[in-house]
């Protein structure tokens, strides 16, 4: 057990699997000589060589195509998009080929696609997005969004082990800011299992990624309201049972995500609660999410755009007083 940053935990997870399994390799822009734009793969090329840590041309299409082909041929690629935003260039290989492969032919296609996502640093519309909902909607793809260093390592290992394409959304805002105890040994955090970040009685707050910390801060500011924070950890497949169990306890729910509101995954969660726990609700299900527009550059606008602690405090208060 040692205290590690979120970034270090991801790096450790990949490195451990590369040492363990020769089929695992990384590819992406600047992942080799430069060690990755955020230094997740720093030192990898020295340890594993240029054939297992491949610097790719500036083409997400090529990266995803290479990952798809090598996975079909039995390798276990861990591909990096320098920013999650650029995954749109990889859409065809990812959605048309990789997502369908296992269902079409029954053969495994074990791809991990690393997607540094999220805003909060004035990155603007091309470097700040959280596109997990778009891919959660594609059958055949799994989407994980860890919030803690421990989960980041455990879910990375689970993603590499998984025979399906797994999109690994790593939140940039957490990279060096969040530290936590991470077991040294190899362990797997199961895909599709939520984690109760904080137990509570009055309101259930369902969220994932960096918003877990926004939720935590907001809950701290309301000592009179007992908030149960459910960290989904995996958006697809998502842990419906954990959410419904918590809803049955508190009867009030706030769904919080950094992605935009309409068509965001929070809508799916709210709809499921309405369908399956209607008779347990004591208030309307509430959503807090970004407005339906691209992420702005200007700091003051970005702050207005990304859900802030104050917004969550207000939402929790309204629900608890309802």
């Amino acid at each position, binding site marked *: 057990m040692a205290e590690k940053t979120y*970034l270090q935990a991801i790096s450790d997870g990949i490195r451990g699997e590369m040492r363990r399994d020769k089929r695992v390799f990384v590819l992406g822009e600047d992942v080799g000589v430069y060690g990755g734009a*955020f230094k997740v793969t720093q030192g990898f090329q020295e340890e594993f060589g240029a054939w297992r840590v491949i610097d790719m041309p500036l083409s997400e299409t090529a990266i995803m195509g290479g990952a798809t082909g090598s996975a079909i041929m039995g390798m276990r690629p861990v591909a990096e998009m320098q920013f999650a935003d650029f995954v749109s260039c990889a859409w065809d290989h990812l959605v048309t080929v990789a997502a369908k492969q296992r269902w079409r032919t029954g053969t495994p296609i074990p791809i991990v696609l690393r997607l540094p996502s999220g805003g*909060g*640093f*004035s*990155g603007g519309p091309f*470097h700040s997005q959280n596109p997990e909902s778009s891919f959660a909607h594609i059958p055949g793809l799994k989407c994980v969004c860890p919030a803690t260093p421990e989960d980041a390592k455990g879910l990375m290992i689970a993603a590499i082990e998984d025979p399906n394409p797994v999109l690994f959304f790593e939140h*940039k*805002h957490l*990279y*060096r*800011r969040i530290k936590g105890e991470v077991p040294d040994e190899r362990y797997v955090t199961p895909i599709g299992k939520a984690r109760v970040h904080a137990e509570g009685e009055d309101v259930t707050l369902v969220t994932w990624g*960096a918003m877990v*910390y*926004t939720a935590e*801060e907001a809950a701290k*500011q309301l000592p009179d309201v007992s908030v149960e924070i459910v960290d989904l950890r995996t958006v697809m497949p998502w842990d419906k049972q954990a959410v419904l169990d918590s809803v049955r306890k508190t*009867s009030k729910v706030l769904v919080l995500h950094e992605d935009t509101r309409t068509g965001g995954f929070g809508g799916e969660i709210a709809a499921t609660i309405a369908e399956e726990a*209607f*008779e*347990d*609700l*004591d*208030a309307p299900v509430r959503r807090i999410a970004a407005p339906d527009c691209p992420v702005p550059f200007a*700091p*003051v606008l*970005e*702050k207005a755009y*990304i859900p*802030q*602690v*104050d917004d969550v*405090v*207000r939402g929790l*208060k309204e629900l608890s*007083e*309802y």
Partner: protein
Amino acid sequence: MATGTAVDVVMPQMGVSVSEGTITKWSKQVGDTIEADETLLEISTDKVDTEVPSPAAGVISEILVAEGETVAVGTVLARIGGEAGAAAPAEAAPQPPEPATQAAADESAAAASEGQAAPAPAAPAPVAPAAPSESNGKSFVSPVVARIAAEHGIDPAQVPGTGNGGRVTKKDIQAFIDSGAQAAPAPPAAAPPPAAAPPAAAQVAHAPADAGEPQQGESFEPMSAMRRGIADHMRRSLDTSAHVTSAIEVDMSKVVAIRQKLKKEYNAAYGVNPTYLAFIARATAETLRDYPYVNGEIRGDKIVSKSFVNLGFAVELADGKGLIVPVVKNAETLNLLGMAKGIADVAKRARDKQLTPDDVAGGSFTITNPGGYGTFHGTPVISQPQVGILGTYALVKRPWVIQDENGADAIAIRSIMNITLTYDHRLVDGAYAGRFLRDLRERLQTWGESDY
């Protein structure tokens, strides 16, 4: 807070993964006047060195972090407040970006400029604990409150509400129930379901669907109350217990021989027939004493064991018209004669419709005997809340491998009966049930002439 309009200058976020920065130089000092966007200080991070512009115009009232110090992103470095800034509160907003962790501790200025925001704790919604009369059903009843109210037979309008506009919240109705304030007619919610639960509640729950008109070739007859009761009970039992059936073959030759001898004596002296069922019931009552779980019950979160054996016997009333299970109480105290008389008594009274409610209540185990028609196996349904039911089947002569007096195998003609135990696997394990059947078989196969 000295000045309500003070604007905080915080360590800005200078890159995606930068979490701290070092102050290299202050361009202004406390007391200096500064314009918005004029350079206030210079900082250094592990990615860039840069100047930080002032977020507002005004007089610098405080400098909180000295040159050379390294602090986390979001830390307040200085405050700008005073005449120049006071005139333009709107400018308070364009601060450098603050990370989520920085929270609202120093947000009074920003909040004021937002106008609507600031969920002022001083003026909460009208939360007056509205008297019941004020919320007389007009208030919205949420789904969970509606469900709890229905389950407990409560009119939500009677519950004092503390939610928005006097709305009854889930907590309100739960507190109301916990306080015992509800009206009398509601059923006791928590009590363990007594043996005779089915009547009113169950029938309300399964209000029968309308059958419509008979189709060609069909005819209707009304369903009797008994049939409906049986239907509800059978369904409820299958929904409650984890039914498993084990069967065993019993060589009844000794019982056949002994019964043959006793038959005349019993009939002449006591007017009762020593049936095979009486032998089996006698052996069962004995065996149950060694296997208390088979004679037990699950009640709520407790396992119930009983010092008595109340044996129920399934009795058919009239050609397919129903079934009733009268109980022979304290069967463990009866000898073979007593058992035979007890069974004959309840069976007769069942057919004559002379049973009292007490005769059908309180069973701890049941025996059903469908073997009279030649069936050799079955999987009966447990009578709730018991956990076991014994089935006895046709007694048939079969070629049977036995050992002769020299210990050699031989084939003999023996009277064999299949006996089943259907048990609730929630309480009774398979091996336990198997040992029960083994011991029961042993008792029947080794029945002695002097046993009674």
